[in-house]
């Protein structure tokens, strides 16, 4: 096993990786941008180094600097987490070229799966069903003809996109030429690759993905599925395992397809094969994520495997410690992503300082958090505050536990989606497992937080906190500078002139 590893990421996933390394006795090196100088991951790692200004392009996406830091600090491996450089083939190559181990798949597998058009072709050859579409490089005429054959609506997608980015629905032939043109322009600007392709638009599909794990010795297993259909802005907010949709037979067939996909691309390490499942329970390869997923914990709790430790073991050359038939699902796990965002305003990201974070704690309740009391949420990075994950003996049990935990999650100072999630997990359609990717749009369009009368108890609490001087002063960072501002005993500023605690 490695003795020292660089964590090329931030937030909750950096914290998750550092913790796994701590248990295994692997020393960790964190990197941080100027915006993250006080972030949790810098504190937990054994060492932490600044790598640049806040914009990712000047810090977390600077592969050259990351390799430099890894070499300078004597690291043997680099874990990319998810996002940032996790699916960047050139970075994986640079890491390996520097004599370090990249905790992830071979660069070639990343590159292949990163080109959505090439991936579709490869999967089709490997016998994995793909969504009917048109991947040609022809002129507009060829696209029009293909779209006619597929039937409208169709999706125009960017070959360099993924995860819902750079995707548009086209309802009729008249709109297609303009849509292609705009999509190409935007794809070029956003991904540096203007190629686009067509896919048949599936009506209200389910998003079901399979976790795979492969070692360097040719063994590939899958760790069953995750149902990720509850999405907003094409991004997942609730994930669960098992999927309420799958039966044993469909689970087996999809699992086999996922393993075949991994074999076809020479996959090593942890990866996820995403499928769409239509109303007739036909499944189609959507894309493969060549990295750890945000939602990996639901699999961990149901299958009983620590995926981060498994990644490290596989990267170190160890063979998988289990065969497919030794793996099984037990109970049910659900994850809710706690975002700094405003569900009542189109889920727009929110920023600010977390004045107080109190995570729920209890049996079978897990919180993977990267943000704690006192942290700033800036607009530079993903607004994910934490992942709340619960396990239960059954789906009902897990749902009750999730409702319990969401009710006890306290986050003051930033707008979050917690109130929204509370209603989703209590929604009858969700409770029945009737989730499709349009679930949020169907059931929560125009959602507004309940506007309740303020209960007397709240006014009493505020008044007594003022009376006792007991509210935490959120806007005082207690900086350890040499002025008096760091003295928490000076009353925090209030707009009017009364002194807290005075009578």
């Amino acid at each position, binding site marked *: 096993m490695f003795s020292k590893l660089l964590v090329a990421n931030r937030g909750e996933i950096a914290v998750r990786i550092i913790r796994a390394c701590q248990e295994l006795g692997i020393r960790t090196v964190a990197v941080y941008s100027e915006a993250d100088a006080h972030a949790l991951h810098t504190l937990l790692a054994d060492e932490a180094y600044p790598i640049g200004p806040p*914009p990712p392009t000047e810090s977390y996406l600077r592969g050259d600097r990351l390799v430099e830091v890894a070499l300078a600090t004597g690291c043997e491996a680099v874990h990319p987490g998810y*996002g940032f450089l996790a699916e960047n083939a050139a970075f994986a190559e640079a890491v390996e070229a520097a004599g370090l181990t990249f905790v992830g798949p071979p660069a070639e597998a990343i590159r292949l799966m990163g080109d959505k058009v090439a991936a579709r072709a490869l999967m089709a050859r490997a016998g994995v069903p793909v969504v009917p579409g048109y991947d040609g490089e022809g002129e507009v005429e060829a696209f029009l003809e293909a779209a006619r054959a597929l039937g409208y609506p169709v999706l125009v997608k960017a070959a360099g996109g993924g995860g819902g*980015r*750079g995707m548009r629905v086209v309802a009729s032939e008249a709109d297609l030429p303009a849509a292609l043109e705009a999509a190409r*322009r*935007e794809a070029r*600007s*956003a991904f540096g690759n203007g190629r686009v392709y067509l896919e048949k638009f599936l009506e209200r599909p389910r998003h079901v993905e399979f976790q795979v794990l492969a070692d360097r010795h040719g063994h590939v297993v899958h760790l069953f599925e995750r149902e990720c259909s509850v999405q907003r802005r094409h*991004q997942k907010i609730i994930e669960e395992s098992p999927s309420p949709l799958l039966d044993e037979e469909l689970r087996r067939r999809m699992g086999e397809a996922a393993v075949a996909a991994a074999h076809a691309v020479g996959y090593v390490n942890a990866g996820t094969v995403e499928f769409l499942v239509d109303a007739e329970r036909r499944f189609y390869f959507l894309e493969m994520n060549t990295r750890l997923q945000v939602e990996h914990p639901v699999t961990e709790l149901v299958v009983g495997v620590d995926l981060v430790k498994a990644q490290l073991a596989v990267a170190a050359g160890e063979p998988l410690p289990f065969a497919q038939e030794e793996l099984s699902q037990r109970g049910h796990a659900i994850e809710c992503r706690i975002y700094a965002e405003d569900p009542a305003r*189109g*889920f*727009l*990201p929110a*920023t600010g300082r977390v*004045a*107080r974070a109190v995570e729920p704690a209890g049996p079978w309740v897990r919180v993977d958090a990267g943000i704690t009391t006192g942290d700033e949420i800036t*607009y*530079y*990075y*993903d*607004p994910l505050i934490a992942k709340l994950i619960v396990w239960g003996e059954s789906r009902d049990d897990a749902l009750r536990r999730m409702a319990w935990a*969401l*009710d*006890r999650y*306290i*986050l*003051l*100072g930033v707008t979050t989606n917690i*109130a929204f999630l*509370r209603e989703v997990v209590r929604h009858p359609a969700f409770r029945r497992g009737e989730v499709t990717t349009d679930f949020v749009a169907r059931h929560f369009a125009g959602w507004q937080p309940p*506007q*309740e009368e*303020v*209960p*007397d*108890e*709240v*006014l*009493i*609490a*505020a*008044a*007594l*906190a*003022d*009376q*006792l001087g*007991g*509210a*935490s*002063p*959120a*806007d005082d960072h207690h900086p350890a500078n040499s002025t008096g501002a760091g003295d928490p005993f000076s009353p*925090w*500023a*209030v*707009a*009017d002139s009364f002194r*807290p605690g005075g*009578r």
Partner: protein
Amino acid sequence: MELHYEVNGIRHAVRVEPSEDGYQVTVGDRTYVVRARQREEGVIDLTIGTRRLRAHVVAEGPRRLVALDATTYALERVRPGGRRRRLGAEHTGRLEAQMPGHVVAVLVEEGQEVEAGQTLVVLEAMKMELRVVAPVAGRVRALRCRPGDVVERGERLVELE
């Protein structure tokens, strides 16, 4: 002592009087016998009648954020007899940034004619992409941003005429 809070534009007066074993608190015409204990900074345990509650209270200037029973409330402490603070006007124009972020792409040029619905600027923040589109057909009078710019919410990005 009487304290005043404003919530959603409504003002509430809370009178707190020390009593034998705690406080007598009056909210409107309702009076409660309350015992309170500050467990740690920002955490107050209350006994109101036979109910026991834990409230988390944070002060941000005159704002009071209170978490109680699965809900978060934002109160504003106000002076007795004082006036409400005016809320900043909401920016709703479609040519302004709807969120803070950075400019990924500017898809038009000054002087260019655009159609209604045409994408003018692509913003990105925290993995989210937002397109700023023309609300009506017109001509671009001025561009107020360039690719790579960091913009604040409400900032004007494009002027149409």
